[in-house]
Structures are given as structure tokens and as C-alpha cells.
């Protein structure tokens, strides 16, 4: 077991005063929200968006917002994986000795980081995504698929009839996030003391070997907290693909609001759902960091 520093928590008068002030502030905001806003609060419609009873099959089914949450998770995991692979590659290019590779990677990172994500999403989706999809003949491929394969795949990628859009959003998000990951990878590698390079090449390793066996394992430990932050960012950034009609959490919420006009209740719920999701991610990464430190 790791030794975790345990100090007794003592609540001083100052702590109590600050807590009371905070509680008062939130209470005031909540009170204002209920009385000051001209709004008919109706929380009773909300639970069915999380979990609903399906009459025809007599079973409980996930509600619309839960389905949206699943889509957000799918999108985050897949684009996270893709972004990490691409980002690592570009990151290596950034520290490469070849000027050509450095220029390519530099252009990519510079281009993506200095443009607003919303604009990028539209450009990627309408131009690049489209070119890729037509090139792959994704449509015909899906219509020709047999139902069993479709069922299995829909667990992984969501409803298959929306697959081309999903892939399009996935690539877009991954391309966007990869630029940030590339910088994290570069910083991680550059933070390793030059002596490590000299020592490893001194033992007869080639540059590639030194990178693989000595430099990168050390760098990855330093990169982890930043990468975790970036992954949480991906979860939150996935909301932006709602503008290109991917039915993730934000999109579902907006559709529900258009039909039910229950804006505040739904936004509050969505806020809580995003918080729980990303907070769990933070906790998991904290665990991972501790484990790596122990090793």
C-alpha cells in the first residue's frame, strides 16, 4: 500500500465562516433562479429523459439524454484514441532532426491552434469529411451490411445509419485535438535531460533505440497529467460537434428543449451529467498517476 499522508481534518472558525458564506451565496442564486426568473419550473418531466419505461416491451430503457451521454462517451473514447496516435506521431515530427518533418508538424499545429474550433469543425465536416466519405463509399458499405454485424457495431459506434456522420465528427475532433496532444508530447520529450540522450547513444544505441527505451518511457510519465487534462477537454469539446448534428448529449438536450421548452431544467441536468463524466475521468487519471509513481 502506498503511504498517503493522512492529516486530521480540523475545521476552524474561518473554514466554517467561508462554508457558510458559500452556502448563503448558492442559496441566494437558487432563490433568485426560482423567484426572480419568470419561469414555470417543472422538474417532474425530467426523470423520463434519463430512464423511461418502455410500454411495448415492458422493460426499462435509457432515456434520450442518457443515449446522448452514451454517444458523447463513444465519441470521446474513439476520438481520444485517434487523437493520441496522431498527436504522438506529430509530436515526434516536432522534435525530429529532419527539417521537412519539423515544418510539416509545425504547420499543422500552428494552423489548428490559431483558428477557432467552431470554424474548423464546419470546414472539416463540409469539405474534408465529405471527400473522405465519398472516397470510402461508406454509404453503400453500410446499406450492404447484414443486420447482425450492424447490431454489434452499433454498440461500439452508435446507430449504424448515422455512421458516416459519426466518423466525420470523429476525424474532425481527432484532427483538432491531435494538435494539442502533439505539443504535450513535444514538451514531454524536450523536458528530458540531454544527458539521457548522450548516455544512451554512448552505450551504442541508435537515436531511435534511445527514444524507445530511454527517453520516451520517462517522458510519458511527465506527459500523463497534461494528457489527462486533454482527454477531459475532448469530452467537453465533443459538445461542439452538436453543430454538425451528431446526436450527442448537447444535441439531444437542444432537441428536447425545442420540443418541451424546459430549457433550465434540461441545461441543469446536462451540466451535472458532464460534470460527473469528467470528474470520474479526473479521478481515474489521478489513480493512474499514483500507480505510475509507485512503479
Amino acid at each position, binding site marked *: 500500500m502506498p503511504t498517503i499522508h493522512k492529516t486530521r481534518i480540523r475545521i476552524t472558525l474561518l473554514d466554517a465562516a467561508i462554508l457558510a458564506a458559500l452556502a448563503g451565496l448558492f442559496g441566494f442564486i437558487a432563490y433568485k433562479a426560482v423567484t426572480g426568473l*419568470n419561469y414555470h419550473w417543472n422538474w417532474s418531466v425530467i426523470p423520463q429523459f434519463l430512464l423511461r419505461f418502455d410500454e411495448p416491451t415492458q422493460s426499462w430503457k435509457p432515456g*434520450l439524454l442518457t443515449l446522448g451521454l452514451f454517444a458523447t462517451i463513444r465519441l470521446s473514447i474513439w476520438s481520444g484514441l485517434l487523437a493520441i496516435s496522431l498527436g504522438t506521431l506529430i509530436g515526434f515530427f516536432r522534435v525530429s532532426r529532419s527539417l521537412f518533418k519539423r515544418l510539416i508538424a509545425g504547420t499543422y499545429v500552428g494552423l489548428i491552434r490559431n483558428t477557432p474550433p467552431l470554424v474548423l469543425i464546419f470546414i472539416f465536416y463540409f469539405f474534408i469529411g*465529405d471527400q473522405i466519405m465519398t472516397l470510402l463509399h461508406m454509404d*453503400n458499405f453500410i*446499406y450492404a451490411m447484414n443486420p447482425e454485424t450492424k447490431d454489434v457495431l452499433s454498440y461500439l459506434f452508435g446507430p449504424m445509419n448515422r455512421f458516416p456522420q459519426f466518423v466525420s465528427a470523429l476525424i474532425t475532433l481527432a484532427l483538432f485535438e491531435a494538435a494539442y496532444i502533439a505539443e504535450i508530447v513535444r514538451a514531454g520529450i524536450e523536458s528530458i535531460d540531454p544527458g539521457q540522450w548522450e548516455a544512451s547513444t554512448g552505450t551504442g544505441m541508435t537515436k531511435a533505440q534511445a527514444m524507445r527505451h530511454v527517453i520516451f518511457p520517462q517522458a510519458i510519465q511527465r506527459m500523463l497529467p497534461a494528457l489527462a487534462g486533454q482527454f477531459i477537454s475532448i469530452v467537453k469539446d465533443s459538445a461542439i460537434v452538436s453543430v454538425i448534428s451528431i446526436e450527442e448529449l448537447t444535441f439531444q438536450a437542444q432537441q428536447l428543449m*425545442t*420540443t418541451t421548452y424546459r430549457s433550465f431544467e434540461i441545461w441543469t441536468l446536462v451540466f451535472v451529467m458532464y460534470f460527473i463524466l469528467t470528474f470520474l475521468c479526473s479521478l481515474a487519471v489521478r489513480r493512474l498517476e499514483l500507480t505510475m509513481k509507485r512503479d
Partner: protein
Amino acid sequence: MKLVRLATLTCLSCLLALIIGCSQQPVQQKAGEKAAPAKTSQLDTILKRGVIKVGFDTFKPWAMKNKNGEYIGFEIDVAKKLAEDMGVQVEFVPTKWSGIIPALLTGKFDIIIGGMSITPQRNLKVNFSIPYEFSGMSVVASKKLAGGRTMASEFNNPATTVAVRLGTTAAEVTKNFLPKAKILFFDEESQTIQELLNERVHAVVASNPLPMNLAKEYPDQLFLPFKEDFTREPISFAVKKGDPDFLNWLNNWVLYTSSKGWLQNRYEYWFYTNEWENQIQ
């Protein structure tokens, strides 16, 4: 090292050639069109695929999501009937209203069935069928801020703020009818309603029955300043340009279906009853 660089360069130049090749395709097609006008219609593509892809956005009661996550509404009925008569399956592609025309043009779906009214600006980019329905624009106003106003001129001053949904004809109508009023644009209908209920805007302009329903739901706060709708806008199917076969089929479908009274019946159901309300809340 040199080999790698050479390989990379070759790959890149191939990619460049491909991109240039792709971008020149439409030009060649255009040249081909003159020689042989028979281009495959989108209609054939749909029949071959066995699926018609329909673009729309949620708009109560045109298209909404029910509790089970299925789409319901007037447009949804229309799209289903259309597909049935065509003998194909229907696939719904919900799309943000502000980006719906670019999405049609880039082939994300075959047709817009989303309560889209004809405007000359839109018509420059897409082709419209003959109208299958008409929608009226109306105003719902805050009693506290604009109580007692019953004339358009009373709203047409810089002290009045009006909220509308971005990209809708309501936005254009408001600019034309109330050029002096301050207009706020929102992405979603629900946001405009919120602004109105919070008394940050004097009125919301939207197509009926939304203003009517709102005035019914909040009788203490909201009212309808005008007795009648101030526009009557033709609602049509929108498809890509240059496809007379598809358009011909759609036009005749509208003529045929209205002659049977089916369209009017569905319209009555979705716009003047609220039997379906328990499906969404």
C-alpha cells in the same frame, strides 16, 4: 533517410494530384452534360439505395422527438408518406437549421422536408417543389413590456427588442416589417421564448402555431398583439438544383396527395389538436 524523404514526397504529390483531380471532376461533368443531358436523377439514386434521406430540424409541431427517441410531427408524417409512395425506407437526418442548406448541397441527405418556406435567396441555391402547405408568421408579445400594442407600427421603433430564430423566415420577415426595431438572433426557438418570458425582449416573431400556443400557456404574461397572421408563406420540399425528374415527381406527389385530402388532415391533426402532446412530455 533519403529514401524516406523521397517516399514521403511521392506520397504527398500523389495526394495533391488526387485533390486536384477530385476538384476538377465537376468541370468535366459539366462539359459532359452539354453533350448528353441524361444525368442520373437523385430519384434513381434513392430508388437504387432503397432509402430516402430526409433533412430537417426540430420545430414544434413540424418535427419533434417523442419520449422513445422517435421523430413525430407533421413533417415526419409527410416524409413517411412520401417514402411509402416511393416504395423506399425513410432515414431521418436531423440537422441544425442554420446549416441545413449547405448540408443538402454537400449531399448529407436527399431532400429537406422541414417546414421550409420558399424565399428567393434560398431558391438561388436550391430547387423548390410546389408548396404542400402554407405557414403564417405571427407575433407573441410580453404583456408587461408591450401590453396594449396592436399595430405593427407600435413595435417598429428602436426601443423595441424582438427575438427570432436564426436562419428562419421569421428573421427576414422581422427585418422587413420592423426595420427600426432591435432584433436578437438565437439558434433555438426555446431560447427566444426564454428571453420573452424573462422580459428581456418585447416580442418573439415565429411561425404559427407557436405564438398561439405560447399565449395559451402563459396567459398572465403573454398575448397576441395581432388578430391575424401577417404572412402566408408557401412551404415546400427543397432539393438540389438541376434535377427536373425528382422535382417533377415531388410536384405531382403534392398535387396527388392534396387531392386526396391527406395533407390537410395531417395538418389539422398536428396544428390544431394537442392529442399528441402526451407523447413528448
